[in-house]
């Protein structure tokens, strides 16, 4: 086990905490798994390109609940207005504002656990915990306590729920573990907008697991926008299970962070379900952003799309891994994967790998992954009309990433995000 994993294991509380028997048992499972396997290493195939050395060098320690968060740190303006807003500071629910729509229930996870909310146990116990690559999830389960439960009642529209994430800068670097549970009953709808931003000089890492359960014909739009500071770590896992005819639309924007890893996984359990995953990552400096997206088609007539665009400059490193598995019986599935990248500097690195496994009949599948440079013909065309070289390149790079923000259902939000991307757009070197 790495020094970091040994330290974090030592930081784990000796006993399984308070609460109901099943919760303590669950924490125990996580703790046992973590003590046995520790954190993922580059020997794990899924972590081949991402080493955790920076976290170890930063002397990362497990956060304990003894230091409650004080004042919320200053956030740049929210991306959009939302009916209901949550402020998550240091991994804990600090503040709620606005009025939830009828049908929308938001509880702190601790509250939800003590009330033993219907469906929560099944959801929490369903998180797959396989090999040594799942160390962060195990740690998250071992410390299960902080977080939120979002529940949308059958046939209701929860509107837009915004979660603002940040951590406070301190002397030491802390690892915060948080769980977000989203339950959409049949025919329920929700737009979940997550914004991550921490003050400069911050060297904390958040380890967040989000589990979403979409009932029949439910519709979840999930927008995740992170502009973390350069020293911040963000390790997240999103697990979505989808019943018949449900729809999950994910839009991820990585504009910041030092070490960023996101495992995005949708499982289509019912027929006719649709998973539409898209994202853009714009990296400069020494940032390291590793995205793994995977869709498992387990029922017939499903549709999935993975549409990701990336730009890397400086000595940044981007990893994008997209996988689709069409399981036996998932006939007449349509699965599309597209990942295109632009390298703006010779020292930047982009690793992209599409994977496709098909064990069913009458499947339509397409995939493509490219890493290239800007179209020089287009650069010249723009310059010949008066834009200088930098403006021309910036316009083209933004346009490239705009193909993701243009997919948002709310064009106004798409415009705001595209402007934010333009503001941070890495320059060519």
């Amino acid at each position: 086990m790495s020094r970091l994993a040994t330290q974090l294991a030592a930081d784990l509380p000796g006993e399984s905490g308070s609460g109901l028997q099943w919760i303590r048992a669950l924490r125990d499972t996580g703790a046992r798994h973590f003590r046995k396997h520790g954190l993922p290493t580059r020997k794990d195939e899924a972590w081949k390109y991402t080493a955790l050395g920076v976290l170890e060098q930063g002397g990362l320690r497990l956060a304990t609940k003894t230091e409650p968060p004080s004042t919320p740190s200053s956030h740049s303006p929210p991306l959009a207005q939302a009916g209901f807003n949550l402020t998550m500071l240091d991994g804990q629910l600090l503040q709620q504002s606005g009025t939830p729509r009828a049908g929308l229930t938001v509880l702190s996870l601790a509250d939800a656990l003590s009330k033993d909310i219907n469906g929560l146990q099944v959801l929490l116990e369903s998180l797959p915990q396989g090999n040594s690559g799942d160390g962060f999830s195990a740690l998250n389960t071992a410390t299960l306590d902080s977080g939120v439960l979002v529940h949308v009642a059958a046939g209701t529209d929860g509107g837009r729920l915004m979660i603002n994430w940040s951590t406070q800068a301190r002397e030491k670097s802390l690892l915060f573990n948080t769980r977000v549970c989203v339950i959409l009953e049949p025919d329920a709808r929700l737009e979940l907008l997550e914004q991550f931003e921490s003050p400069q000089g911050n060297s904390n890492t958040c380890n967040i697991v989000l589990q979403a359960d979409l009932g029949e014909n439910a519709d979840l739009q999930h927008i995740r926008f992170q502009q973390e500071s350069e020293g911040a770590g963000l390790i997240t896992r999103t697990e979505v299970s989808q019943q018949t005819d449900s729809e999950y639309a994910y839009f991820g924007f990585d504009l910041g962070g030092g070490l960023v890893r996101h495992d995005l996984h949708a499982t289509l359990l019912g027929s006719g379900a649709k998973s539409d995953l898209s994202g853009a990552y714009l990296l400069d400096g020494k940032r390291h952003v590793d995205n793994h997206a995977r869709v498992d088609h387990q029922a017939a007539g499903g549709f999935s799309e993975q549409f990701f665009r990336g730009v890397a400059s400086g000595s940044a490193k981007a990893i994008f891994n997209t996988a689709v598995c069409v399981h036996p019986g998932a006939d007449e599935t349509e699965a599309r994967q597209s990942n295109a990248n632009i390298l703006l500097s010779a020292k930047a690195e982009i690793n992209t790998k599409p994977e496709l496994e098909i064990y069913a009949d009458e499947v339509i599948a397409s995939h493509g992954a490219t890493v290239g440079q800007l179209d020089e013909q287009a650069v010249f065309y723009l310059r010949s009309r008066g834009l200088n070289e930098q403006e021309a390149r910036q316009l083209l790079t933004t346009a490239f990433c705009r193909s993701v923000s243009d997919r948002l259902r709310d064009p106004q939000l798409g415009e705001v995000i595209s402007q934010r991307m333009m503001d941070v757009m890495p320059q060519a070197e």
Partner: protein
Amino acid sequence: MLRITNLHARVAGKEILKGLSLELKAGEIHAIMGPNGAGKSTLGNVLAGREGYEVTDGEVIFNGKNLLELEPEERACEGVFLAFQYPVEIPGVNNTYFLRAALNAQRKYRGEEILDSVGFLRLVREKLKILNIGDELLHRAVNEGFSGGEKKRNEIFQMAVLEPSLAILDETDSGLDIDALKTVAEGVNRLRSKDRGMIVVTHYQRLLDHIVPDRVHVLADGQLVATGGADLALKLEEQGYAWLEDGGIQTLNTDPVKQTANP
């Protein structure tokens, strides 16, 4: 306004322009004709400053400035506009947004006020009306999925908005239907003024029926081999280029342009 003297240029290591000289006075329109591969587009690209076109000899003076020393965007800001023979498609970049950014970049360079979106829209509407074209292309990405004729129309529309002092039209009339041809002619004629100059590269007389050029040049094998009045185009249409081959450099009618002999 434009004086090209003994211009030699190479593309991919091959000499394409071999001592081309041309003088264009303010207020004039010159047509350049000539066989495929002669170097007409190369001349346009050299004037616009495209990378990969290496000038090995000669000079180009534009309004007193050494044009070849300027960056492509500086040339544009100085008033040079090239309507491309094959305009590129730029997915994701909105046509209107791009054109406004370009116009404002040029205005900024010239120390003029930046146009806000309202002012820009007014200008755009006015130009659309003059050119008798619809606004459906404006909302799309630059040239993306445009038909051949739509791309050419878009070039003319850009020219109308940017109002360059030197416009070079590279086969803007090729592949156009009759209405679009009128749009191009209208665009050129509207821009025609005593302090602007234009070079129209074409293979056909039909555009020249609408835009009567002051001079017609024949470019063959990297040089101007013949120069004449508007009637030269008619003769070329009837007889092709073969008759020029034996004669070498010819000067027809009363031609003020001096030809530099090929060394």
